[in-house]
């Protein structure tokens, strides 16, 4: 077949949305490559859910264009919903049905043939480790199982793009790791993923690229490591005193680190090599020290909220 697969599976351009005059999306744009896992991180109210619901065609947008595989969504049958699987933020499994029935009924909404729903149901329950729960009511499931079933439900019609709005919020660590594992498996199967979260570790573990969103626009986007390298020196030293007083009252660090930042009772020092600085404070004593690699959370906080003081550069 001479079908040209566009390199971007999902494109959003110039999206605007305001609720009673308050802008939620402002000239928002997004390009997600086929087979990519793109993670949108941002504080609450940054516009993540509105973006997902806008792409889905649930939230009417004030302006902008969304294309799936190069086609404007309005031109696709049912607004592209046969191509999209959606895992919403709030649990909306159908409590009137069992686990398997939830998949059955959902498949019928897509008008899938009965035989293919049956086949998909057993595949998906197996894949999401829910086969033993097929005939259990929804109320008998744990939070993690419900989320896995919601993902299974989103996959019933074999969509090529899945939108997940905060898929691991409220889950315990075991449940989160299982979800991540399953999402990586989906990605290996060639499914394109767009995921929102406000957990940085989730973004770091799953994303091919991370986009940081605040006030309805993307502030920066890149693969996680690149994003960190772009904004923050590679090492961070956190200093704190047990009594809450200033960790370095004489400002010894000034001129010895690339950047520093005071957040409440904590002093954050940034640099390429902080071994010497760490040794100095360790010998001083009376301090809680944490020497670690810079991570996405540092970048996130820097871009969305607290500012890094740049004046301390050597």
């Amino acid at each position: 077949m001479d079908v040209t697969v566009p390199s971007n599976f999902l494109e959003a351009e110039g999206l605007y949305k305001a609720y009673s005059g308050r802008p939620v999306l402002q000239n928002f744009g997004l390009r997600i490559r086929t087979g990519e896992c793109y993670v949108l991180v941002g504080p609450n109210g940054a516009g993540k859910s509105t973006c997902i619901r806008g792409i889905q065609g649930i939230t009417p947008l004030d302006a902008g264009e969304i294309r799936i595989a190069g086609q404007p969504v309005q031109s696709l049958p049912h607004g592209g919903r046969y191509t999209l699987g959606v895992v919403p933020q709030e649990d909306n499994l159908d409590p009137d049905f069992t686990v398997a029935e939830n998949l059955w009924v959902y498949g019928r909404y897509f008008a899938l043939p009965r035989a293919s729903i049956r086949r998909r149901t057993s595949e998906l329950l197996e894949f999401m480790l829910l086969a033993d729960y097929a005939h259990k009511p929804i109320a008998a499931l744990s939070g993690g199982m419900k989320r896995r079933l919601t993902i299974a439900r989103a996959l019933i019609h074999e969509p090529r793009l899945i939108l997940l709005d905060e898929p691991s919020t409220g889950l315990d660590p075991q449940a989160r790791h299982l979800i991540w594992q399953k999402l990586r498996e989906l990605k290996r199967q060639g499914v394109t993923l767009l995921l929102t979260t406000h957990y940085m570790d989730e973004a770091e573990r799953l994303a091919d690229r991370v986009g940081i969103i605040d006030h309805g626009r993307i502030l920066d986007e890149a693969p996680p490591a690149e994003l960190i390298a772009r904004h923050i020196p590679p090492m961070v030293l956190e200093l704190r005193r047990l009594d809450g007083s200033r960790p370095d009252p004489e400002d010894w660090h000034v001129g010895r680190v690339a950047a520093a930042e005071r957040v409440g009772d904590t002093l954050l020092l940034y640099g390429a090599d902080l071994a010497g600085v760490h040794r100095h404070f360790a010998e001083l004593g009376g301090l809680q020290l944490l020497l670690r690699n810079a991570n996405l959370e540092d970048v996130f906080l820097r871009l969305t909220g607290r500012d890094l003081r740049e004046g301390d550069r050597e």
Partner: protein
Amino acid sequence: MSTWRHYLPGWACWALVARNFRVWRKLWLPSLLGNFGDPLLYLLALGYGLGHFVGRIEGMSYITFIASGIVASSVMNTATFEGLYSAFTRMSVQKTYAAILATPLEVSDVLAGEMLWSALKGTISAVAIIVVASFFGAIHWAGVPWALPVILLSGMAFAAIALTVTAISRSYDFFMYYFTLVVTPMFLFCGVFYPLKTLPTLGQTIAQFLPLTHAVALLRPWLTGHWPTDIALHLAVLAGYTVVGYTLAILLLRRRLLV
């Protein structure tokens, strides 16, 4: 996708009817028992008890008179309850509609599906009453084929109004207004228990604007071996309530669900 599909339903609405039927099937026995039991009590208490003092009314026994009235009011109650409480539960508590809107179904399909299902449920209860009433010799079967489409249409009309109320409701408490101000007055003043002409003129005029009056005006003759008058007018009022209710509900529901 063309814009009219946002406002007019397609075949996809039957997927919602099928969903609701699947839920009903799980509890069909108690549900049917309720459908049989309630009217049986009404027929016994009012038909025999009160009927003893009433004697004959409009040329028929009282139990025959109220049997057809109870068929009509039961369609109203069943379709209304489904369009209010059940639909509100699916919309607000269970978020079923939110889940459905990620599928090819539109708000129009959800609304039409709920209306059809409510009307079907109303029809199930009407048929249950017809069966029970026929044991008392209160039903003429010849007219039943004519009555059934009217029962279905009445169910659509009551469901359409109820779903409009649901679309603007913030909680279950709001439904009490609708029951006290609309449903109960219709139950008592639209000719279910006594002929309309016993009401004062003003009452009769008001009753002419209420859908239950027109459902009774069609169902009573057909279920008691007579032929109704002004059939077109009664059908037009019921169809009018269906269309106006649907139109209001689709506008309100789209505003509520698509945010």
